[in-house]
């Protein structure tokens, strides 16, 4: 006869565990089985690769338990998350080990090791008493940190922390009760049986001193019940709260290592990513819309929260610069911009109807060179950039064909970011035809917005895609463009689409370093600020955009540089409205340095 160790007080705990795992597995299995064919094929090929699986396991250990990515963003926050997650994990693991060693059987029901002290008050297994007390103290310190964070986020250097849903608050309350109740229950056990280590033992001695010994067993019984109820309540509320992330992050890490990705046309992988959001709120402070007080409830954490609950409104999805600053700090690595685009697409697809039949009548002039230069729509409003490129081309003796000198079709990225994917695809298809038919082998653009969609979405038969800063850097490296280092100083602004979007940080700096003194602003590279002009935001008016730009310009003015240099026509336009310092494109800076006259 197997001993089941049944006691009535474990019922709330058992109910919680059963509800949690049945709801959770139903969700996860239904999401994974509803993945598109191509994703499932990737899963099947990845799951048999030992290296991939081991890599995913290692990542799950690092990120779900040790939270190393949070550590890179915020040390105090890291302590809070790690002490709770890793501490609790160790409590469970060591608890299990203690029970196995004590009962001398590998099969111990889960509730026996969770309520081990209640079942076996006299058990004494090596140093386990001390270890378990130390671990409990570790978790409790994390709990104190969590309480402080909730009421005083500034202690963690955070301006704002997340506003929670009812489910979150329920789970949070239960979670906050679990460990203090465990401490109390175990200490009353110690009070009765005169056991326990430095924490539970000392507290127990105090209870024995203060309370009549007759009352101790009753209080003890109530406390173990409360501990069981708080655990059960927490488990039941996990699927309806942010704490689903504890479990959702594991399949997310595995699927990601199998190269499954979110899509702008949402799949069930999007649902898994949404569930993996811990609502830690790290994405809130980097958001310039939050910092400028323009919108306080549209940040990624709130978009995902609303999507999980009832579906976010289009207005909420639209209110975002898609600068990628939140995505670059997200400790879970959620594809925030792709998910936001998919929400916009979903909310917009019923009403948006674009008709680009006229695109077939658009043609480009005959190519005069193998190197094509595409200004893009924004570039066409900053003609000095193309003019500078023309001058640079003449000076370095290369032929450039200016594709959209007369007019050109939009690259489609603005429509893509608005969620009008079919419209964007129609423009992409026609541009692909025109570029490929023209016979060019290199396509240079001064617009990071165009470049990003060319690289990510276009199929261009191997045409080399370059940003003009990369093209100029190449000319310099090949010795075709001779420059002398001047006295001017340049503070370089990383455009979002070029930097965080495409990872192009170095070439512009090399170019500027060759022609003058390069200054860095306080926040640059992957921490660079958005100019505020972003085409991704459909709701901002010019006054709000200027407010964002003014904040950015202030950082640049602090460097004292002669010029603010950017390499995006949109950024140039936005920033130049908000500063007295001259804002120029990198091509203009080079043209000035080589001293060529307008061609």
């Amino acid at each position: 006869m197997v001993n089941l160790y049944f006691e009535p007080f474990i019922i709330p705990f058992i109910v919680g565990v059963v509800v949690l795992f049945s709801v959770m597995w139903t969700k996860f299995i239904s999401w994974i089985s509803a993945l598109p064919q191509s994703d499932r094929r990737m899963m099947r090929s990845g799951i048999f690769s030992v290296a991939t699986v081991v890599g995913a396991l290692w990542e799950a250990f690092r990120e779900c338990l040790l939270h190393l990515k949070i550590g890179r963003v915020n040390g105090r926050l890291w302590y809070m998350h790690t002490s709770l997650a890793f501490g609790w994990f160790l409590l469970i693991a060591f608890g299990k080990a203690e029970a196995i060693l004590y009962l001398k059987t590998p099969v111990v029901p889960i509730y026996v090791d969770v309520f081990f002290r209640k079942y076996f008050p006299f058990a004494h297994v090596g140093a386990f008493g001390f270890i378990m007390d130390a671990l409990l103290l570790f978790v409790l310190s994390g709990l104190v940190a969590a309480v402080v964070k909730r009421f005083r986020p500034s202690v963690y250097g955070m301006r704002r922390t997340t506003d929670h849903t009812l489910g979150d608050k329920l789970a949070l309350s239960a979670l906050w009760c679990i460990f203090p109740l465990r401490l109390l229950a175990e200490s009353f056990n110690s009070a009765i049986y005169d056991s326990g280590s430095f924490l539970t033992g000392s507290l127990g001695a105090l209870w024995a001193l203060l309370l009549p010994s007759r009352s101790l067993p009753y209080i003890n019984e109530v406390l173990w019940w409360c501990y069981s109820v708080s655990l059960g309540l927490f488990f039941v509320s996990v699927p309806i709260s942010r704490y689903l992330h504890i479990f959702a992050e594991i399949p997310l890490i595995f699927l990601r290592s199998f190269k499954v990705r979110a899509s702008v046309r949402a799949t069930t992988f999007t649902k898994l990513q949404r569930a993996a959001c811990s609502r830690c709120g790290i994405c809130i402070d980097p958001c310039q819309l939050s910092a400028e007080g323009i919108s306080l409830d549209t940040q990624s954490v709130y978009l995902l929260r609303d999507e999980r609950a009832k579906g976010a409104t289009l207005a909420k999805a639209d209110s975002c610069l898609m600068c990628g600053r939140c995505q670059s700090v997200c400790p879970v690595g959620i594809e925030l911009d792709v998910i936001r685009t998919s929400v916009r697409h979903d909310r917009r697809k019923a009403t948006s109807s674009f008709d680009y039949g006229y695109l077939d009548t658009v043609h480009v002039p005959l190519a005069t060179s193998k190197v094509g230069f595409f200004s893009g729509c924004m570039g066409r409003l900053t003609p000095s950039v193309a003019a500078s490129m023309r001058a640079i081309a003449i000076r370095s003796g290369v032929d450039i064909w200016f594709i959209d000198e007369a007019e050109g079709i939009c690259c489609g990225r603005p429509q893509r970011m608005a969620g009008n994917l079919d419209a964007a695809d129609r423009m992409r298809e026609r541009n692909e035809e025109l570029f490929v038919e023209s016979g060019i082998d290199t396509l240079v653009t001064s617009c990071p917005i165009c470049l990003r969609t060319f690289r990510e979405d276009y199929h261009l038969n191997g045409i080399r895609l370059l940003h003009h800063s990369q093209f100029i850097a190449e000319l310099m490296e090949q010795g075709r463009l001779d420059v002398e280092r001047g006295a001017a100083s340049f503070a370089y602004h990383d455009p979002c689409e070029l930097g965080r979007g495409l990872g192009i940080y170095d070439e512009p700096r090399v170019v500027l370093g060759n022609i003058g003194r390069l200054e860095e602003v306080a926040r640059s590279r992957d921490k660079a600020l958005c100019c505020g002009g972003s085409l991704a935001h459909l709701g901002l008016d010019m006054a709000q955009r200027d407010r964002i730009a003014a904040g950015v310009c202030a950082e640049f003015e602090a460097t004292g540089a002669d010029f603010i240099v950017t390499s995006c026509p949109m950024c140039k336009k936005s920033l130049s409205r908000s500063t007295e310092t001259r804002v120029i494109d990198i091509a203009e800076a080079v043209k000035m340095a080589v001293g060529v006259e307008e061609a």
Partner: protein
Amino acid sequence: MEKAVADIHKGSSGTVAKKFGFTVKSGRAIDIDAADMSVADEVMARVPSWSLCIGCGGCTATCTAGAFADYNFRRLHLMVRRGEVTGLRGRLSACMLCGKCVLQCPRGVNTRGVIAALMELLPRD
């Protein structure tokens, strides 16, 4: 001469009128009873900067889609403001949402916001 005058009065493609650079259009009155202001009111509520428009036409002058197709955003949004909303959705559909109109607008109107709102609100033809 008589023919030319007749052409002017026809208000279509008379040679004189063409050379002169203007055409004479037949009279056109706004029927206030038929005007549907609901779309304009809703767009104005969503995009307050629309009220700053002075109708300069810069948006249309710079428009990428307008270079290729018969698409005139200035005319289109002014018709919405007059309450003449039928038949506009199809005309709006040429827009590429590229954003040049926003950048050049001297009044800082969020024209793309207006277009996005119109796409949602204009009646289906």
